[in-house]
């Protein structure tokens, strides 16, 4: 059945980016305010789920040609590498470090290695959620 879903598709094109930016915001805010990798990842996957609802499985897979299993594995490796970095400095595993950097546009910013760990969490959450939804949705 072919229905006319112009309104939902147009709205989705706008709303997707709002949710996407909000997920990035939540992710970076996690150190000082509520948020972090897990919620950020869930928001990101909910944005993709909105795309799936408005369009279909195939177009979205063409739009975002991501292998979500590989995404999950990458996230795991990033988290493990962040935590394991401490092994090379011979301090206990998971010891984090931070410093201040002068970044272009942002000015003086504190960067903490916990953020890289959270990046891994973010990727794993997106990867796992999307794998589940695509697997179930892809079943004919």
């Amino acid at each position, binding site marked *: 059945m072919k229905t006319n879903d112009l309104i939902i598709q147009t709205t989705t094109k706008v709303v997707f980016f709002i949710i996407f930016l909000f997920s990035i915001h939540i992710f970076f805010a996690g150190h000082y305010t509520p948020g972090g990798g897990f919620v950020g990842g869930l928001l990101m996957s909910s944005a993709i789920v909105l795309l799936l609802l408005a369009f279909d499985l195939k177009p979205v897979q063409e739009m975002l040609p991501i292998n979500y299993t590989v995404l999950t594995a990458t996230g795991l490796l990033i988290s*493990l590498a962040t935590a394991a970095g401490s*092994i090379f400095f011979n301090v*206990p595993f*998971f010891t984090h470090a931070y410093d201040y950097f002068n970044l272009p546009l942002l000015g003086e910013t504190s960067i903490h290695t916990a953020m890289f760990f959270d990046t891994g969490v973010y990727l794993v959450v997106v990867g796992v959620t999307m794998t589940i939804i695509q697997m179930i949705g892809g079943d004919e």
Partner: protein
Amino acid sequence: MINLLLFPVLIPFLFAAILLFFPKKVKAQRITVMIGLLLALASAIVLLVKVKTDGVQTVTLGSWAPPFGITMVSDMISVLLVLSSLLIAIFVVWYSYTSIGEDREKAFYYPAIMFMLTGVNGAFTTGDIFNMFVFFEVLLMSSYVLIVLGGEKVQLRESIKYILVNIVSSSLFVITVGYLYSVVGTLNMADISIKLSEIGQSGIVTVIAVLFLIVFGIKGAIFPLFFWLPGSYAAPPVPVLALFGALLTKVGVYAIMRTYTLFFTTDIGYTHELLMVISIITIIAGCVGALAYFDLKQIIIYNIVIAVGVILFGASIMNKSGMLGSVFYLIHDILIKGALFLLIGIIIKITGTSDLRKMGGLMKRYPALAWSYLIAAFGLAGIPPLSGFIGKLLVVQGGFEGEYIWQSIFILASSLIVLLSAIRIFIYAFWGEDKVGLHTISPKTYRQLLFPAITLVAITVFYGVGSEYLVPFMTDASTVLLDPSVYTDAVFGGLK
């Protein structure tokens, strides 16, 4: 290298993540998984030497002071268990090359094994009770994958039961940890031990001890909580069954031994008496099951239940010989159960059935298989030069020293039944007329399956013959279990 004790946990995890990248390339998967396991085994051996020379190793993650961060503790018992779990995994993977089939290998079979090892080794190494819960979940999730992988009807049915039982026991675990936290206000196991000894004998602590026994009893299959085990373990293919039978219940047993020697030492009259009674009934229930079936898998599965009873009986006596025997028997049982499952896997492959009454006369065509099965069966029952002897001897000795005469006689009698059940397989499968006729297994496959199994049997023989060399290691392990202050001193390292 202060992080050395984490390597047996981290290396399987790293390799599991790497294996996720190329699930369809079977050859590359096989090579990578073996490299990972060998590296992990090497690190475990280095760690064993380190623990032997320098005593208990600890590291508190994130450079936080001990009660506040997650402490990982590697004492002799945990490093021995880590070593034997990696050893079993190597043989199971080697056996899987021939036995498991390409379809399963392409469906994340090896990553699941590596994740399960991460969980098992982590649960053996952790020094934090909530972290132990997390590692339990890691190993359980991977075992859910392994039990259902392949999607046969029986696997689907049994995996639902298995998951339901484990979810219930995991939620009970969280609730129990919640109770414990509200009593002592800490999650670090060394700190809990100190706080609980300050509180002394108190009703709520005994209740928590019994709750922990129920939680770990479901995981470790004690009476009357083993009801899920025979069905669930018979469902997956043989290499997975070998891995489960050798490792999963032992994690529960280890957790009971750890909590009952480290935490709940104040009201021994109630808690350890209960543990002893339950372990004896577990042995009886296992014996009944082992004699009742004509099914190869079921007979060995019920032998797991018997072994769990023997190990816990040794631990519940709380004297030197009992604990030493219990540690000896724990490691022996991991090795011998792995070997037996791999051997009966070959028998099932040859005859195409697991029903004893439909097979016979394999002795003529497969003598190597027959003799190695016989050696493994004798090892299981505890015939003197072989691996099961020294552990059971010490457990019984501990029983007599603690004046538990009747219980010790039960243990001795159970050995006879174990022997009977294992020899029944030998008599039905290897003696008599050849009932099968058509043998579908090719000589090449047979050899490829037999090598890992025979090597594992050889290792159990060395374990039994060379137990003299193992005594110092086992003594160290039982010393830590009997004296919690060794453990707490190592964790706090002069801070308290």
